[in-house]
């Protein structure tokens, strides 16, 4: 009955699953992170460090990978890198948007960041929310759209002062050239870093930025496995630990419960 056994084996199982390749079948995983985002993804020497990097390490370990290679994932190329298979997963302050979802899938979000405002500690008492920025100088980073949400969408009459980068904005904030810097709270917290005496986040969030894990479109098995790992990261307290490790000193209000997932596929 060898033939019958063969059919039994073939029909009974083994033939399930999609035809789509999953990251779960790989030996080595390539993960894209930010190389220049303090607190989130920063290259130091040959190593990467930050919240995104730690989350990526936790998740890939839960998926059973010991070999993980980190490479930089520049914002403009993230979809392309996933589509072409240059990276398997992206953890790089990668906001889930409907447009991006037409090209790639997202696990998570693993954190919902909010646009918030960083001011000098001495001004923190008078600036309660974004409307109090009226008539003040707001830092505008070349190429970033965050200022639009204040000036155009919230219609707050601010004066824009241009700067090439957020670290430059922080310097200008301390020197008094600008009064406020506004972008994702985790990014602000990362840049503010140890400067907790001189600058302060006002904790008046006004957008949701859902940081997702980018994954190739159609890899539903991989996407769901990442979601499960993220759920466990919150359940076993790791998420809270990592959030406090990277952003705790800045006084930012951190959410330590699992975010609402986007759903796979």
């Amino acid at each position, binding site marked *: 009955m060898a*033939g019958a056994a063969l059919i039994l084996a073939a*029909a009974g199982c083994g033939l399930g699953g999609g035809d789509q390749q999953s990251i779960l079948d790989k030996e080595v995983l390539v993960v894209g992170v930010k190389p220049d985002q303090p607190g989130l993804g920063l290259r130091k020497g040959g190593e990467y460090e930050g919240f995104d990097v730690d989350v990526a390490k936790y998740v890939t370990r839960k998926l059973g990978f010991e070999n993980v290679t980190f490479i930089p994932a520049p914002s403009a190329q993230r979809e392309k890198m996933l589509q072409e298979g240059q990276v398997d997963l992206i953890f790089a302050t990668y906001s889930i948007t409907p447009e991006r979802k037409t090209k790639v899938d997202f696990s998570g979000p693993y954190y919902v960041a909010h646009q918030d405002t960083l001011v000098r500690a001495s001004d923190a008492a008078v600036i309660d929310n974004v409307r109090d920025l009226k008539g003040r100088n707001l830092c505008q980073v070349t190429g970033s759209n965050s200022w639009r949400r204040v000036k155009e969408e919230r219609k707050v009459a601010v004066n824009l002062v241009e700067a090439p980068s957020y670290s430059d904005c922080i310097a200008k904030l301390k020197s008094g050239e600008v009064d406020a810097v506004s972008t994702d709270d985790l990014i602000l917290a990362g840049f503010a870093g140890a400067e907790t005496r001189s600058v302060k986040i006002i904790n008046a969030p006004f957008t949701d930025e859902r940081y997702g894990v980018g994954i190739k479109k159609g890899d539903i098995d991989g996407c769901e496995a990442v979601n499960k790992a993220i759920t466990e990261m919150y359940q076993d307290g790791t998420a809270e630990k990592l959030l406090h490790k990277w952003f705790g000193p800045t006084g930012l209000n951190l959410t330590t419960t699992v975010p609402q997932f986007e759903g796979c596929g």
Partner: protein
Amino acid sequence: MTISQQAPAPPAAPAGQPPGPPPAPTPPAPATGRGRRRTVPARIWTLTGASLVAAALLFGATALSIGNAREGLQVIGHDAGPQVVATADLYFALSDMDAQVANVLLIGRETSLGKGRQQALDRYDQRRAEASRAVLQAAELALGDPTEQQTVRQVLDGLGRYERLAAQAILLDQQSQHAAGPPPDRVIELYRQATDLMRLDLLPKAYNLTLDSGTIVRETYEDESAAVLTGRFLVGAAGLLTLALLIGLQIFLARRFRRVLNPALLLATLIIAVFTLSGMLLLGREAENLRMAKDDGFNSVLALSRARAIGNTMHGDQSRYLLDPQRADTYEQVYLDKSQSVLYTPGGSLDKYYAGVDKVVGEWPEKVDFLGFHGAEARNLTLRDQRPAVGAVLTAYEKFQQQDRQMRRLAVAGQARQAIALRMGTLAQSFESYDKALVDLIALHRGAFDGAIRSGDDDLGGWNVIVPGAAVLAALLIFAGIVPRLSEYR
């Protein structure tokens, strides 16, 4: 599976060989001189044995694949599928509890607003009961998955805390006897704790539970439908092989015994042919039934239920926007974010969004220039009557957003009282029409789901008799065909 019973290994055939090249002729008989007389029965037995083995494969593969189809229909149509849909109700019930609390606090002591405070309280109780039932369903689905079970426990714990906070807020609000509008700060403070717990902690977990448990359905579907399709191929191959062997046997007998036809064998051949064909047709239909139940039914029901639950939270955000002026910006922003997940058109502010909705809904159905839940639905028109149903949803959604715009205009212009009256009156009605249109659309998909499952079940009806019946009949006929010939050698 009755493979071995149906294929008694015939004495002279090397038992258990897979069908393939028929085994070498029987070893020469020890006695000499009568070689030819002994080889003929041996060859008859060999061919017969091979045919019976092939037929056993045919019936076995059919029975297995039918088992796969039955399992798929059971899980998707009767067990996990409906339960997963029920967990989507958990999110809806929780979100509506929070919306009703906001309404109660916003209405205050007024009696002339909308359906009034008492009705909001009644609906709160009703939703709480629904939420408890849905948690039970979720707990059942989570069996065997410790991570999911943990989430269910956390939802239960959180629900207890939420109810306590909400009850305190409602009691304090009642004591303050305030006019419609923002209640005293102490009440707002309590409600903030409650709604933060709900929106940031419980609702995400409830939502994730539905997504997690949907995995069972997806994996079952992928496994079973692949198995059914493979089974269909195996049935075809085994059927052809059996037919070839039976025809070979027929020809052999015709040549050796100079008879034109062996009627019993011919009948057996016919039975095998008809069985193979109808088996393949059945499995093809079952694969299609599973696909329809999953893609046109389950997936859409689940996605639209999520859209409905999110819509309900948006309606609550409208109350919260009026209830807590200090947080109005935040509530407006989450309202926009949720709107965009339901129906996406680009635009970072509500003003741009309203204009976008007017534009894309106006262009429909000529153009589907929007994403989100409704975009996916509008792009995937597969059911009869789906187009008008989607149209009704879109129109009602546009109306709802227009009313929202009006409410915010009133609020910004300082006409708080009119804004609240609108929220509890016309806006609430336009939300209900939108919700009703969405429920109708969900019912349409639910109908497709139930229809596909029913037709899958119906098609399988009788096959647990047909398979063994046809197997026994074919085996008997084959024996009836060869025994008289063999007896000529006695």
